[in-house]
């Protein structure tokens, strides 16, 4: 990767961290008046984003961050007072800033009315806050000036608000001669007399004079006449001055720039000496004279190309000890760097893959040993048991490296809540719990979407309007609680609201109306609540902008089940609803049932299996021309031969002398999948089919078994919908409804 691209990637990574810091800081401010360090941290986050954005020419981002920063600066200095309205505005500004960062990452600078309006709002807050004090703060004036400029994308370099130089390129080609210009050389007369303060800041006249020579040939004359006799010489004072005659094709500003750092620390006069410039100045001699004059004892002439040593002012206190850490204003323990290392995630993924190989290899070896007929008490078998134990421990430790707290997902939710609340006109408080609960990275990445959906749903459908809540004797502000915890080797996420609870009558009416259940079906409260997960069910009378872009909870359920997870709802009228979703802690391994299907070894995810049974011949019944159902206690479920569904065979052998897996799918519907045999349960390492091939219908992924062969992992949901030709959808829905 190009080095600048790498730094840009770092910038966006850093932005994510800064935006998270920003949000944490603002939320702390929301909770009550924050201390100076919190405000400072928020300021720094915005400031750093702005700094990086400027370097990459994200003009729109820089403009907006600048106004934001100015406001934070006002808060920091106490010119602007903290208020809840102000913090609310800052939170929205932070959201917008995140959007602008995202837009910049996408390559386009999204500039819209929203940005302009938000910037104007912040500007009002800046001016409102400062009108009480003085309006002299330069930052405020600057920001006000910038607002006149339209919020539109401008290429870098064109009227940048932050004096953008030419685009940053890593190539540093230095002009060693004076800049070429059309105008002929001009002779400049410069008088330069440093004051003592110039030396105190580490400036060095010789270097400034050397810089000046880069502009063109110069005659430098040292005036050392005011140097007192050595006995009375104060080494920290300034006794020297220079007259310089410079011939260069440059503007006065370029000369002034050389003296930029010593402005105020010297007497400086620059004037044109006249049109006739001296042809060639004896710079070497002049420079040698200069060096000789400031060196003690006097040294021989030095070539100007050789860097002169820094020696002014001469430090009288000769012994130079190693510097001691100066007393910092903060507790050193706080500042101690964290003992963490940064590792490329790809390396960890690779390590996890390798450990997966190790697990497979260990299983293969164990199988070979068993097949060889060695006694379980033989030294080899005992050694293998130890190996298995070790392998498992290594696997757990390695998985722990990749485990991350769910915080990264939870942190995105306050914003979602704010936006959804604003859109629905509801008042919402979000409470989070267990955000340090850890789960594998593969799962974290897949959590955001279902959680987003459930929270939107809780606000949109769960919580009442403030008026309705007041009427019900509740706090007008509703509460949504998002929690994470570990339970039984899985991660459990709960999204609870204190709203009205599910309106079961309405849900049942809709479900009946849409033929999702039979009109005379007798359903328990729990069954009614879970109807909302049925495909095509949506309680919103119109397709709501908020809860789902037209998709319902069935989509949430499907995506969770695709991960080997489960979702359920519990609701109490008037008190609210709780969605509970549980997921495996990792998507790298899976607990599965190893089965035989038409001569192939396959794996069915244990999470989908309710039970396995051997059907009695009288429980298997025909339905319609080709359909088969199985009576399981008092219900009938569709009976599907896995081999036929996947197309491995066309004719299914009788189910009664084989094995049935009773499985449950996305919509809570069940099916009986017929396999030819069961080999038992085991943990398998999940291997992607898509990495080298593509998705295969009915197959979730692959794994490698103890014999080294690839076995396919069933996608139970897909198998249930992949009906062999002939089975009608109508029969299917009747069956589900009758359940």
């Amino acid at each position, binding site marked *: 990767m190009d080095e600048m691209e790498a730094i840009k990637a770092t910038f966006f990574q850093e932005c994510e961290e800064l935006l998270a810091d920003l949000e944490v800081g603002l939320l702390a401010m929301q909770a009550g008046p924050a201390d100076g360090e919190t405000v400072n941290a928020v300021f*720094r986050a915005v400031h750093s984003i702005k700094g990086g954005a400027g370097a990459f020419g994200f003009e729109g981002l820089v403009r907006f961050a600048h106004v934001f920063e100015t406001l934070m600066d006002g808060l920091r200095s106490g010119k602007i007072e903290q208020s809840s309205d102000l913090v609310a505005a800052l939170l929205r500004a932070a959201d917008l800033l995140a959007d602008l960062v995202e837009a910049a990452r996408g390559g386009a600078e999204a500039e819209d009315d929203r940005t302009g309006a938000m910037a104007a709002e912040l500007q009002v807050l800046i001016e409102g806050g400062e009108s009480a004090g003085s309006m002299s703060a330069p930052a405020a004036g600057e920001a006000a000036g910038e607002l006149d400029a339209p919020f539109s994308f401008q290429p870098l370099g064109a009227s940048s608000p932050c004096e953008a130089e030419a685009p940053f390129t890593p190539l540093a080609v230095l002009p060693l001669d004076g800049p070429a210009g059309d105008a002929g050389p001009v002779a400049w007369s410069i008088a330069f007399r440093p004051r003592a303060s110039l030396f105190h*800041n580490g400036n060095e006249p010789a270097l400034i004079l050397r810089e000046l020579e880069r502009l063109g040939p110069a005659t430098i004359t040292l005036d050392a006449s005011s140097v007192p006799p050595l006995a009375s010489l104060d080494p920290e004072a300034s006794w020297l001055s220079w007259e310089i005659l410079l011939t260069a094709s440059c503007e006065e500003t370029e000369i002034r720039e050389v003296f930029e750092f010593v402005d105020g620390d010297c007497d400086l006069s620059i004037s044109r000496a006249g049109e006739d410039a001296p042809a060639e100045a004896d710079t070497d001699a002049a420079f040698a004279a200069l060096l000789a004059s400031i060196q003690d004892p006097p040294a021989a002439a030095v070539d100007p190309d050789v860097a002169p040593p820094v020696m002014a002012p001469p430090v009288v206190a000769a012994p130079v000890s190693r510097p001691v850490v100066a007393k910092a204003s903060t507790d050193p323990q706080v500042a101690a760097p964290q003992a963490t290392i940064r590792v490329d995630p790809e390396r960890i993924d690779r390590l996890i893959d390798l450990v997966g190989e190790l697990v497979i290899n260990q299983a293969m070896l164990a199988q070979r040993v068993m097949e060889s007929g060695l006694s379980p008490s033989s030294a080899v078998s005992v050694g293998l048991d130890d190996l298995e134990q070790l392998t498992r421990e290594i696997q757990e430790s390695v998985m722990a490296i990749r485990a991350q707290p769910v915080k990264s997902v939870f942190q995105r939710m306050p914003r979602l809540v704010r936006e959804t609340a604003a859109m629905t006109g509801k008042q919402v408080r979000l409470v989070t719990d267990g955000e340090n609960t850890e789960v594998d990275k593969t799962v974290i990445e897949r959590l955001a979407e279902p959680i987003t959906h459930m929270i939107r749903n809780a606000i949109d459908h769960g919580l009442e309007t403030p008026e309705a809540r007041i009427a019900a004797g509740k706090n007008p502000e509703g509460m949504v609680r998002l929690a994470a915890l570990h339970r039984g080797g899985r991660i459990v996420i709960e999204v609870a609201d204190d709203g009205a609870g599910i309106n079961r009558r309405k849900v049942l009416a809709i479900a009946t109306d849409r033929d999702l259940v039979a009109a005379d079906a007798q359903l328990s409260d729990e069954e009614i609540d879970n109807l909302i997960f049925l495909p095509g069910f949506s309680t919103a009378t119109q397709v709501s902008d908020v809860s789902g872009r037209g998709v319902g909870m069935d989509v949430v359920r499907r995506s969770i089940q695709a991960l080997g997870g489960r979702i359920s709802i519990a609701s109490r009228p008037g008190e609210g609803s709780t969605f509970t979703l549980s997921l495996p802690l990792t998507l790298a391994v899976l607990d599965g049932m190893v089965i035989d299907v038409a001569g192939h070894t396959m794996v069915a995810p244990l999470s989908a299996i309710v039970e396995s049974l051997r059907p009695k011949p009288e429980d298997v019944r025909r339905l319609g021309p080709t359909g088969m159902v199985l009576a399981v206690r008092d219900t009938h479920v569709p009976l599907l031969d896995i081999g036929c569904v996947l197309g491995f065979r066309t004719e299914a052998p009788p189910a009664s002398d084989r094995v049935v897996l009773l499985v449950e799918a996305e919509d809570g519907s069940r099916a009986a999948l017929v396999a030819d045999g069961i080999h038992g349960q085991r943990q398998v390492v999940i291997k992607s089919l898509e990495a080298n091939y593509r998705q295969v219908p009915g197959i979730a992924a692959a794994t490698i078994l103890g014999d080294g062969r690839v076995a396919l992992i069933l996608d139970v949901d897909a198998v249930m919908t992949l009906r062999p030709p002939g089975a009608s959808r109508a029969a299917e829905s009747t069956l589900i409804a009758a359940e």
Partner: protein
Amino acid sequence: MKQTILTVDDSRTMRDMLRLALVAAGYRVIEAIDGVDGLQVLTGEKPDVIITDINMPNLDGFGFIEAVRKDVAWRGTPILVLTTESDAEKKARARDAGATGWIVKPFSPDKLVQAIRRVAA
């Protein structure tokens, strides 16, 4: 001999950009993530130039410069501060604290190296 430059900035992005430009220009670069870290680094290194940011946690640029200048070993060491805009107030404060000069962000490598040349042999 290569000159050594200490960069002190809490932003990884900015540290990386400085490193890229400075290494290309032939300097050796050492880094610190804030003022406290910077002082720590100075116990074991002797940079020829120090470039520091102003807004940093733990110990900001002003505090860092003051602490550096208090030590006689660093009295003459050039210190350049990074400022985001040409903010006269910040420059003045930095100079009062003992800064030698400043670099306005965003910087081009040329401007960066020019600023260093103006303060370091």
